[in-house]
């Protein structure tokens, strides 16, 4: 098990290889569908003019995401009415939905790691090589367990997206993940997909 703290250096990222088990510590930001669409449209492609507090949030995010990690997660949070936030359940969500956006978000904000589940495609893999960054696979569904690694909720942006879709700024301690896409073009997902396809072809031949 490797121990890594955010922000993560280039060297530390290049050092990570597919299959490595990692315990992550430090600050990270959650973001999923609405957040990625909003970042791309408002700040990267600029197809939508900034509204409300968009620009302020952008400035904050630039600092927070630099060298850090985005977590594809739509948590269950208590204390939403009082502002005394606590993560109750916080496992990863399916990452592939962010495939159209992820590489651009990584490059724009210098994001070194993406945590999620299910892996991502060729575009993100290329983004991992260029940024450089890696894809960390968390254990899907292990929500109570992973919420326990969240030691502090620093705050939240864009709560109007809804609790699951908002960007939560959190502090984690020894958050367990497996590297399934690295900065050298390696992808465990492509390997398993190819191997299983070959077995499927044989199975389809069987009477």
């Amino acid at each position, binding site marked *: 098990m490797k121990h890594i703290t955010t922000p993560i250096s280039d060297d530390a990222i290049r050092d990570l290889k597919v299959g490595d088990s990692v315990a992550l510590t430090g600050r990270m930001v959650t973001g999923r569908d609405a957040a990625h669409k909003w970042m791309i449209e408002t700040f990267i492609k600029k197809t939508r003019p900034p509204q409300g507090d968009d620009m302020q949030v952008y400035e904050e995010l630039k600092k927070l995401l630099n060298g850090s990690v985005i977590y594809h997660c739509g948590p269950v949070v208590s204390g939403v009415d009082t502002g005394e936030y606590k993560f109750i*359940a916080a496992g990863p969500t399916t990452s592939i939905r962010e495939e159209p956006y992820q590489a651009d978000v990584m490059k724009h904000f210098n994001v070194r790691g993406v945590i999620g589940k299910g892996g991502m495609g060729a575009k993100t893999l290329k983004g991992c090589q260029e940024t450089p960054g890696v894809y960390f696979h968390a254990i899907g*569904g292990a*929500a109570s367990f992973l919420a326990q690694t969240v030691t502090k909720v620093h705050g939240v942006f864009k709560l109007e997206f*809804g609790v699951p879709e908002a960007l939560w700024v959190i502090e984690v301690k020894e958050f367990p993940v497996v590297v399934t896409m690295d900065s050298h073009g390696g992808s465990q*997902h492509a390997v398993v997909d190819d191997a299983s396809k070959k077995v499927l072809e044989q199975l389809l031949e069987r009477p």
Partner: protein
Amino acid sequence: MRDLTQEIIELIRRTSSSLPPDVEKRLRESIEKEEPGSAARGALETIMKNIELSRANSTPICQDTGTPIFQVHYPVGWSTIQLKKQIRAALEEATKKSFMRPNAVDAIYDRNTGNNLGGDDFPYIHFEETEGEDLVIELMLKGGGCENVGRQYSLPDNSLGAGRDLAGVRKVVLDAVQKAQGQGCAPGILGVSIGGDRGSSYIKSKEVLFSEMGTRNKDPNLAELEERLTKESNEMGIGPMGFGGKTTVLDTKITGLSRLPASYFVSVSYMCWAYRRRKMTVKGEEVIYD
């Protein structure tokens, strides 16, 4: 009519935070099949820790508390209008207590309602009048990640060489498992329905998931296919979370429906390892949870 709102909140709490023992047992047994030190084994070990922790703290097993699917079997004399109101009130309250995540999003305006109540369709409630004396409410929470990898096939499917018979069914189900990879939070449980129209077929493929692990179809041909599909799915080596490994599918359940001469649908509902389903029975004054 009796107000069961509090009892239904308890049903929701149990369903969301305490995995049924038959599912937990299967998961535990599969740990030994994976190589020591492998990512697959690590994933299963984390899953087991998570199950224990959620139960001890009454926190959701998974943050995606899914589509709440209620099946209500009610004896003569109960009002479904009242029961529906109670279920909705219970769900709203359970969400406030963080047993559930607000999961109802208006699809047209992209707004989360915040209380887990959508229009008439969310939560999903199916009422069935029974001849017995007990009121039985079953609840299943069907996660979105695994729902997304469900598939429907219209046979014949030439690309897979799948004709309109059980051999063809086998082929398309294996294809669905391969395409799902780890995306539905493998290891999963397959609900398969053969026949029906597109709508009824999908509904049935979820209904079969209400039965216990290892329940085999009474028809020996289907029972055999269930076992074969589980075994062959695991030969594909996809493994927990798609990390590669021996445990991809924990069980398969198949059911048949009537079909039109023109149609032959096969629907596959993929249920993730967080296979949350619970039952409450109202027997006179008493309420019993399974």
